[in-house]
């Protein structure tokens, strides 16, 4: 499941709802991304997340479908917020439930890495010096590249 919203979310309620009534789930791994008060050594007052409505939902659903192809997943959820957010605020929630805990860990890490490079979101940060658009990090590309299949695997 995919949700793109301005409102905050409740990780505990989402966790409980995702596996409610499904007693085949053995492990649930979740990631919550938060707004940090520092970026590149600069204090941050707030950030604004802009996105591409329509395409965002489409790409997140594609990423989720890819994860479900690669790992045995019982249930999954991606919630991503947009709009202005202050330090400490929740930005993104990714939950993966599986009967195999290692699959849940890997699939959740995969989803987080991929949505950082594949989902059409852009962050604008507010500092003392004014506002600026955040540049993409090469380490995020590297993290996403970990999951790219090697050529000989692609043929399988």
């Amino acid at each position: 499941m995919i949700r793109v919203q301005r409102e905050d979310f409740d990780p505990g309620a989402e966790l409980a709802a995702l596996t409610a009534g499904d007693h085949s789930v053995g492990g649930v791994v979740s990631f919550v991304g938060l707004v940090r008060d520092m970026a590149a050594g600069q204090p941050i007052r707030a950030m604004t997340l802009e996105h591409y409505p329509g395409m965002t939902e489409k790409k997140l659903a594609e990423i989720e479908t890819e994860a479900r192809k690669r790992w045995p997943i019982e249930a999954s959820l991606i919630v991503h917020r947009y709009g202005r957010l202050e330090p400490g605020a929740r930005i993104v929630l990714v939950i993966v439930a599986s009967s195999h805990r290692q699959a849940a860990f890997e699939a959740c890490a995969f989803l987080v890495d991929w949505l950082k490079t594949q989902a059409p979101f852009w962050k604008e940060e507010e500092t003392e010096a004014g506002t600026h658009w955040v540049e993409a990090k090469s380490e995020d590309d590297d993290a996403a590249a970990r999951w790219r299949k090697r050529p000989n695997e692609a043929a399988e």
Partner: protein
Amino acid sequence: MKLLYFAWLKTRTGRAEEELSPPDGVATVGALVDWLKTRGPGYQAAFAEMRAIRAAVNQEYVGLDHPVRPGDEVAFFPPMTGG
């Protein structure tokens, strides 16, 4: 053709979206960028550094050689920074 601009491209072009009808010769994303740059200094500033720009046609990421047609939704933006 519907054009969308995000993040600092929106700031430089001065608009989030617009409806345009490029001339017939504009058949690829790259040709569309070249044509947009003739529309004024804001567009020239927005598309000055193509290395830092990504494009999507009908909500799929594409390269500069990808075809564009009347009726397409074409978006320009910097590399994504979500999550």
